[in-house]
């Protein structure tokens, strides 16, 4: 079953188009990353799904049906910033969230324990550090142990230990069979915790699907010889090679991650009458992949 289906969703802020006809579906049980640089429309998209923003066009379905308030009560959501009453304590704030969601107060201690805020549970929200505020927001999302969680930049403001803890928590929740929709501009984060990804750029959906297919980490072998065109023609017959392209006075051969063998490339060229003047393995970083996708 699809947890969320987004159909041709658009959002305009005056002349600015924040979302341009975005469509994708989030299958149940996945950790679905929405990846994109700042201003790409991630929060706008989740804001529409959570009914705090009005779509300019298109629509969406939650649990395969038209959206209702009841559905939102079954989803734990952290959207953009931790939103709490500054003058109330963590417990008092969570009582309000629980009352709106229609839960009792019995779950409050459990979620505060998960996000390590038990010791400060009676302190005012205004006295919390940025990281503590973020953790409280994650705790609030966990109230009632929902099967679907929406996290918008969940590691914002957290220290490295906090980031690692939240990533572990997300993995643990995923292992329990929960569906997690996570927006992030951190490719590393998406790559580490997500099973699926949708990539947004300036409001346009560039691609979406299995994270291992989209964020495939290729090896690039760069070679050069006096006769570049002859080299390029010969390399097209190289076994195991992916895409081949000529860049400046070199030829780049792309291999699936970890399969490039420099000795085999050298031997192949030599056997075909070409002596290489340049041979180099270039590991493509995830960042460069991200730039390639979004630029």
């Amino acid at each position: 079953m699809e947890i969320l289906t987004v159909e041709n969703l658009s959002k305009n802020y005056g002349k600015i188009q924040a979302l341009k006809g975005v469509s994708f579906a989030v299958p149940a049980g996945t950790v679905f990353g929405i990846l994109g640089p700042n201003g790409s429309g991630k929060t706008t998209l989740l804001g529409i799904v959570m009914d705090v923003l009005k779509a300019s066009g298109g629509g969406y379905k939650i649990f395969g049906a038209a959206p209702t308030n009841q559905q939102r009560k079954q989803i734990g959501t952290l959207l953009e910033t931790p939103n709490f009453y500054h003058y109330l304590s963590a417990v008092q704030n969570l009582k309000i969230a629980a009352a709106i969601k229609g839960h009792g107060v019995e779950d409050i201690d459990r979620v505060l324990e998960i996000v390590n805020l038990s010791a400060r549970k009676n302190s005012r929200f205004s006295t919390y550090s940025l990281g503590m505020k973020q953790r409280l927001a994650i705790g609030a999302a966990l109230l009632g142990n929902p099967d679907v969680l929406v996290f918008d930049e969940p590691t914002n403001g957290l220290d490295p230990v906090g980031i690692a803890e939240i990533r572990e928590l997300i993995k643990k929740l995923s292992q329990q069979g929960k569906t997690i929709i996570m927006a992030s501009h951190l490719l590393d984060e998406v790559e580490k915790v997500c099973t699926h990804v949708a990539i947004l750029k300036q409001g346009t959906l560039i691609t979406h699907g299995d994270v291992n297919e989209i964020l495939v980490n290729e090896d690039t072998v760069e070679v050069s010889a006096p006769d570049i065109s002859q080299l390029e023609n010969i390399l097209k017959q190289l076994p195991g090679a992916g895409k081949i392209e000529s860049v400046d006075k070199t030829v780049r051969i792309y291999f699936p991650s970890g399969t490039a063998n420099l000795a085999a490339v050298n031997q192949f060229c030599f056997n075909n009458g070409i002596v290489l003047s340049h041979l180099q393995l270039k590991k493509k970083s995830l960042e460069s992949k991200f730039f390639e996708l979004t630029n």
Partner: protein
Amino acid sequence: MLKLLKTEWLKLKNYNAFIVLSSFFALGVFTTNYIVFTVNKNIVNKVNAVGLGTSFNPYDFTRTWQTTSYATGWLLMLPALLLIILVTNEFNYRTNRQNIIDGWSRQEFISVKIALAVITALVTTLLVIITALTFGAFSGTSFAMDGFSHVGYFLLKALSYNLLAVLISVWIRRTGFAIGLYFIYLGAENIISQLLDVWSLKLRSESKIDLGSMGDYLPMNASDGLLTFPDNPLKSMAKANLPTDYTWLVIIMAVLYVVLFYILSRRSVVKSDQ
């Protein structure tokens, strides 16, 4: 609705500004009326004794409802101020978003704020009734319900003040700007109202056209105009030259403005991005 109000109470009961402003208002109602009571007793009656008029006690039964409603009406900016703070807090803390994310509909979010404004108006009216009864009891006259309609006018004024506060809050969203605009609007409307009243007088005396006091047809002055201090002998003499008091028209307009404020507030929250 009861469930929504219980949740709203969770937000209020530990909020210092709510406790302080509510206490100030309750104290203010008693103090203001006490001052009017004392001033009248010590000064007005002494002036009257010199021979300018007959004995006049504004807290006599039949008059106490009107006097208490009128005097307390001056304090209605305090609950309105509290409502502006409460509603704009939601936007400042972005909890308006969170309430909706957690499962309230936009209608539920605005309905509970409107309900809060109505409950505040009812509580302040109850306070007026208790105060009127208390001061009436001290006047030495026997209980009478005559003039109780002024308590109804007070409720209408409280509703106008509170719902305008909610409307400006959902439009402006920033506490400081909303409070500023609220008071600027009250001031500006008052000036325009007085100019319209002067024009009404002129029309009546020069052209013999009696449209009533037109200043009373403006949103806040409609409910303000209904609440007046009881006619003392001097005021009664001056009244003969004033335009006719079309009370029912003013009541209808005041009710219509309350409904308009409600519709506009609701529309703003339901239709716009949060």
